């Protein structure tokens, strides 16, 4: 056998690691289920169809934002402007959604367009300058908030058409539209990430940008794509929120970026890039939703809830690094 002498050398490190890091896909799911079981035991009000619907509805906006930011974080970037994009796109959509003005498709498209443009601008500055994404999107976060206030003259945009309000507040066959759109968005984002060339390139760019370049990947184009996608998803979230509260609020979405990033990180997306899954992010968002819902039901005040949430974020990352260590 010609090259037989090397056969036995490389068997030393055979540990296998999937792309979901952290407590691992199943660890996270187990933690989630455990908390659900604990809550069902602690309070009978938790495990009711009505309550679960409430949770998913509340989670859906955050989950949409978290999907978008997961794309960005996988490429090694970050987007802090998503909360402001929610406000801008909500205000834009609301401005076109007054009764008897435009058909409902117009506010939808205008909102989406605003988000896509905003995201593309983020991507453009990130790829064309040497400024870190953290700083770029910190800047556009403030710019976005200002834009939302300018476009609305600082006042809520109300008096919206019924058909517009149906988008985020209605039900189809008894299922809230928010839940349907969440499921559609989740499946689409999963497909993009796992089944497409673009998704593969995202992992490559975040995993090792130079090696991606040497493989002929247009790194700038991939980054443009993720920030634009993130803007699109933020627009969807902004439109749904506006529709649900039947008002375009220039102050909406403040702090949403942190919840979305938290969901991605709890879900095992590494902030250094190159790893993360939509399933993880979805579970992360659900976990955040279930815990705050459970604490509500247990009459824990929102002050304590924030402390608990912070501990969970840090705990998830600590478990993450412990898990990585044992696998190294």
């Amino acid at each position, binding site marked *: 056998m010609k090259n037989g002498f090397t056969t036995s050398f490389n068997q030393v*490190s*055979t540990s296998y690691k999937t792309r979901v890091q952290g407590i691992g896909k199943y660890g996270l799911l187990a933690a989630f289920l455990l908390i659900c079981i604990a809550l069902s035991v602690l309070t009978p009000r938790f495990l009711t169809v009505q309550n679960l619907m409430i949770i998913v509805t509340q989670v859906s906006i955050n989950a949409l934002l978290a999907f978008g930011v997961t794309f960005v974080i996988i490429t090694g970037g970050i987007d802090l402007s998503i909360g402001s994009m929610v406000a801008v796109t909500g205000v834009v959509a609301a401005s076109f959604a007054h009764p008897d003005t435009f058909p409902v498709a117009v506010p939808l498209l205008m909102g989406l367009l605003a988000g896509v443009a905003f995201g593309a601008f983020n991507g453009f500055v990130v790829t064309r300058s040497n400024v870190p994404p953290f700083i770029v999107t910190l800047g556009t976060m403030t710019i976005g908030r200002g834009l939302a206030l300018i476009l609305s003259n600082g006042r809520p945009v109300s008096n919206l058409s019924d058909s517009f309000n149906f988008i985020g507040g209605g039900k189809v066959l008894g299922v809230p539209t928010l839940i349907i759109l969440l499921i559609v968005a989740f499946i689409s984002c999963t497909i993009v990430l796992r089944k497409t*060339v673009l998704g593969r390139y995202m992992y490559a760019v975040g995993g090792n940008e130079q090696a*991606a370049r*040497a493989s*002929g990947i247009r790194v700038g184009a991939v980054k443009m794509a993720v920030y634009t996608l993130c803007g699109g998803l933020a627009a969807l979230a902004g439109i749904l929120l506006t529709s649900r509260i039947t008002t375009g609020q220039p102050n909406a979405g403040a702090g949403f970026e942190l919840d979305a990033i938290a969901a991605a990180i709890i879900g095992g997306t590494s902030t250094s890039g*190159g790893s993360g899954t939509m399933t993880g992010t979805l579970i992360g968002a659900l976990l955040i939703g279930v815990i705050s819902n459970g604490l509500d039901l247990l009459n824990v005040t929102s002050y304590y809830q924030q402390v608990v949430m912070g501990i969970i974020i840090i705990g998830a990352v600590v478990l993450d690094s412990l898990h990585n260590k044992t696998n190294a």
Partner: protein
Amino acid sequence: MTSDTILQVRGLTKTFSGVKALDDVQLTIRKGEVHALMGENGAGKSTLMKILIGLLTPDSGEILFEGNDLTTGNVGDVLKRGISMIHQEMLMIPELTVAQNIFLGRERSGGLLRWLDDRRLTEKAGALLEQMGVAIRPDMPVKYLSVAQMQMVEIARAISNNASVIIMDEPTSALADAEVATLFRIIGELTRQGVAIIYISHKMDEIFTIADTVTVLRDGKYIATRPAAELDIDTLIALMVGRKLDSLFPVPDGVPAGEVMLSVDGLGRRGVFADISFEVRAGEVLGIAGLMGAGRTEIARAIFGLDRISQGEIRIRGKRVVIHSPQDAIGHGIGYVSEDRKGWGFIPGMSVRENLTLASLRKWSSGPFIRDKQERDVATAMMGELNVKATGPDQLVTYLSGGNQQKVVIGNRLLAQPAILILDEPTRGIDIGAKAEIYRLIHQWQQRGVAIIMISSELPEILGMSDRIMVLAQGKQTTMLSRHEASQETIMRYAMHRDRDTGPTGE
């Protein structure tokens, strides 16, 4: 244990998830010797060293250091007792000065809140460096140092630690010849003072230059310890691989080269290289030799579109092309395997399959969607062709040995079906078995009509693989030799060629 034994390891065993990385290993280090530790990648050298410096705890066995049991020590204990390691990747804080790095963690200012006496540290460090005979300013931030200088600082740190055993892991991998000479001089001085050096390297000539004793490991097992003077290269290789290697290099088959695939005319990059002209034909290997810093890698980078050229032109199949980016180069059928495998080669968090298909993914997809089955089949077939040792196509590349990682990088380029393949130091840091396989692969792709440019610092490799050899010195082309004209001596003569009047000004 004789009186001059300083470190003795007996019956050391370490298991990782069921696989024995070390199996009943022994090692005896005497005062003032250079003890080379040899073995292919995966033989257990790194694990053994990690145990010696206390990063890992062995499952069984004992370590006696000056007669004291050291088996379960942590890093701090081992350092205090005098074992230091010069790491392959420099572990220093770039913003701190040389002196601050040397005494890091041992400032002895008495308590966290006391003022640091930086001036005293700088004086002490200065004295130490002067004693070593190296010209490095102790108050210079480490980030301004060259790799060689950083290594000297690491050694100074070890000396200041009163280390009586210093472990050096591939210390010359990033050094130029003159710097290697300095390192060897310092090693000589240290051993005269009774310091023992454990020296890990793949470079045979170094081993025979400085080692007194050689211990060989294979598959985690102790194989032999011999005085270096009683060994020759063939015997050593036979001990390492467990059998004799018939021939490292494939036999040239004398098939004439085909059409000119790539020609470069008067290529230059201001201040880096100038007036480079050559051509490579289909089915030909053009070797590029030269000392470190002669401009070899820079030429490759420029052709691949990573750096801009300031003059000259590049033709592919006779047609002039402009290459501004790696995408342009790949579009013209050029593949480039960098000398920096970790930096430019693979994506550590990705599987073998994903790394293999990355450069050619468009071929295995319909529109935006990857055709999963085809991708897997293609990757599996390439793994077979390259003889990649992995648990399967889904194993992460990080967990492969250096040689197998390199095969994956080469496979990634090959799947893009390049007409021209540029290999920069294709076997650096790779064990000898994997080397032979990579040579076989290069030969195989040469036979399929790929034009290959191979840059290498290893002269046997250049001589063994190239049809023609271009030699560079100081950014200029000093000669083009045919296979039968070339010898180590001629190449070295042209590589050392100094021409004061015509430096690489690029004008």
